């Protein structure tokens, strides 16, 4: 090791630990995929096994488990025993949460860090500051799955009207930073459509109109964004609205850019922006779905669009578009 950090004092050399008998890990003579432990990890886990044997739950157990967690944040037994110890000695859980603020950011992608945080929150039951903390971690990684999942759990579990107040603004801020952040789009769907109806949102027609304007506006700024198209489809499906209703909006995106219309301000049907890269494959696919649903003669228009996707605008999915054409033609024949 070239790093000049001194190895911490071994537990065996610390007088305050000499009442604990370390217990070595039992390992067969020919272990499978053994890990060449550092002396520090081996020493700490020997003492941890020693502690488990006596069942001690004390302040020093918190130090020991923190030490192990910093060496191996996926050590789920260290987390499990730490949590039990916190409860047993009635430790200050707010202090624990502050320590977790640091560990969550260091080990953002470890399951256990977030699981432990959930367990703490079930005891502390103060979710509001957590939303602020999460917003902070998004500065490091705005698409972290564990963090988003924790936020969704907090909101759904505590489901307090005050908690939800800033949620839509929060999503919009993230989408302003990155219009292609699918986690933010997903969270928008969850907030608006999947978590009940909150005060001020009772008029669902108005909410639907607002969301349609929002997503269409977003598409007009950046048409080639699958997240926005998926959101559009999602809200139409959720509200049982036929895709046909979007035909006027979608059509200009399936053609080459028309410089004339680009300056129009039309909230219902915002035209593509001047920098848009057109035609847009997602729009062609959407229009084909409209024609397919119409059936009859429109099916032929759909097959033409699928052909253009497979041959020109979305070549890497050629096999899929050929399949859609076959299915479409079969539907006409029957």
């Amino acid at each position, binding site marked *: 090791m070239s790093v000049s950090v001194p190895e911490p004092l071994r537990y065996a050399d610390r007088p305050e630990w000499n009442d604990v008998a370390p217990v070595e890990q039992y390992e*067969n003579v020919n272990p*499978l*995929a053994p890990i060449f432990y550092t002396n520090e990890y081996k020493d700490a886990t020997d003492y941890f096994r020693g502690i488990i044997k006596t069942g001690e739950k004390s302040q020093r157990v918190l130090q020991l488990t923190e030490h192990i967690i910093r060496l191996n944040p996926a*050590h789920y037994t260290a987390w*499990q025993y730490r949590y039990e110890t916190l409860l047993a000695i009635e430790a200050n859980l707010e202090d624990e949460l502050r320590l977790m603020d640091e560990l969550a950011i260091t080990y953002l992608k470890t399951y256990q860090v977030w699981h432990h945080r959930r367990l703490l929150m079930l005891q502390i039951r103060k979710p509001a500051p957590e939303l602020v903390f999460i917003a902070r971690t998004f500065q490091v990684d705005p698409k972290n799955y564990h963090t988003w999942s924790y936020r969704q759990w907090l909101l759904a579990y505590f489901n307090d009207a005050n908690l939800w107040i800033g949620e839509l603004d929060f999503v919009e801020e993230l989408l302003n930073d990155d219009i292609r952040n*699918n986690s933010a789009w997903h969270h928008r769907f969850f907030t608006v459509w999947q978590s009940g109806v909150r005060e001020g949102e009772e008029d669902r027609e108005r909410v639907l109109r607002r969301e349609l304007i929002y997503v269409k506006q977003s598409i007009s700024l950046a048409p080639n964004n699958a997240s926005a198209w998926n959101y559009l489809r999602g809200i139409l499906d959720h509200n049982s609205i036929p895709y046909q209703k979007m035909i006027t909006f979608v059509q200009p995106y399936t053609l080459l850019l028309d410089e004339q219309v680009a300056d129009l301000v039309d909230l219902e049907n915002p035209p593509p922006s001047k920098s848009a890269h057109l035609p847009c494959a997602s729009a062609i696919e959407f229009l084909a779905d409209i024609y397919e649903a119409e059936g009859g003669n429109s099916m032929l228009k759909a097959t033409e669009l699928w052909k253009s996707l497979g041959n020109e605008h979305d070549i890497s*999915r050629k096999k899929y578009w050929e399949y859609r054409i076959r299915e479409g033609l079969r539907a006409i024949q029957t």
Partner: protein
Amino acid sequence: MTKDFNLPPLARLAHAGHARRCLSGLPDSQIELDSGRMAVAFYCLGALDLLKMLQDKVSMTDRESWQEWIWEQHTRGKYGSGFRPSPFMTVSSEVERTTSYTDYDTPHIIMTYTALLTLAILRDDFSQLDKQGILLLLKACQREDGSFSTIPGGGETDLRTLYCAFVIAHLLDDWSTINLQNAFSFIASCRSYEGGYGQSAHCEANGGTTYIAMAAMELAPVSTTPLTALEKRKTIEWALHNQLESGGFCGRTNKLADACYCFWIGGSLKILGAGDLVDSRSLASFLASCQFRFGGIAKAPGEHPDPYHTYLSLATLSMFPPPVYENDASGSSWIFDPLDPLINARQETADWARKYIAIKH
């Protein structure tokens, strides 16, 4: 598009070497795998099995002693029986080791799944398996909402564990200790508007958990699938749209391609009967670009390889053998035996597992 580039060789020997080296030992930088070593063993031995190099690369003595090591992780106790991830919480004394486990050394559902598959790869006869005890463990780990925890009484619960529990029940051919209705409603609660599935209720659609939802519903012993034709189509569309121009799949909309999602999303499509809609040649070309110079396959080009991405890449190729042409220098290096996409093992290994693990009623 598919014919205008040459497929480079798949470095089979180098990948087998990588898997073999990891089985012999992992550096201290991999300490986070301490509580998941059984899964590492599965990925490494599974890679050798898919490459059909297990006999060449591993001596009979090693294979036997590794079987013995896995059986030492088989443990019994008040919540039922199963396998531990490793002896990371096992104490040294012989006497203590053979008695019932404590609350801090219980079997783990995901590790039980990987241990069963690994033993099948090693062609174990499973005569030591406490089958009734494993059924009890499944019961002890299922929560009221239908999900499963990784360990009895604690640990995270999400779709991953549910899948592992379902494979175990499938291999035992006994679903009597699982509440299927609750499990199904948990799966349904994970469905997202995009057509994929999230890790738990309200979560964003993700390739890994979508595979798990598809495989679990297909494994369950019910005659009709709980998905409507329209829902299936939506899932297929979402999955296909995650194949990017590089040929690789991303795990979520607008993310980057990653070798592991080639398996998770490719597997979902295979299970949904839409495997032939995948462009397998560009998929193989993406995986070729993830090969590490000295063996092993990484999540993306230029990254470091690991057993997880190596195994899942080879499993992907077993499901989606690319068409090879005369110009391809080593076309034969891309040929694999078929994979059982539901339990994730080479077909022959999967058949062995079913034959020897099933409870004879």
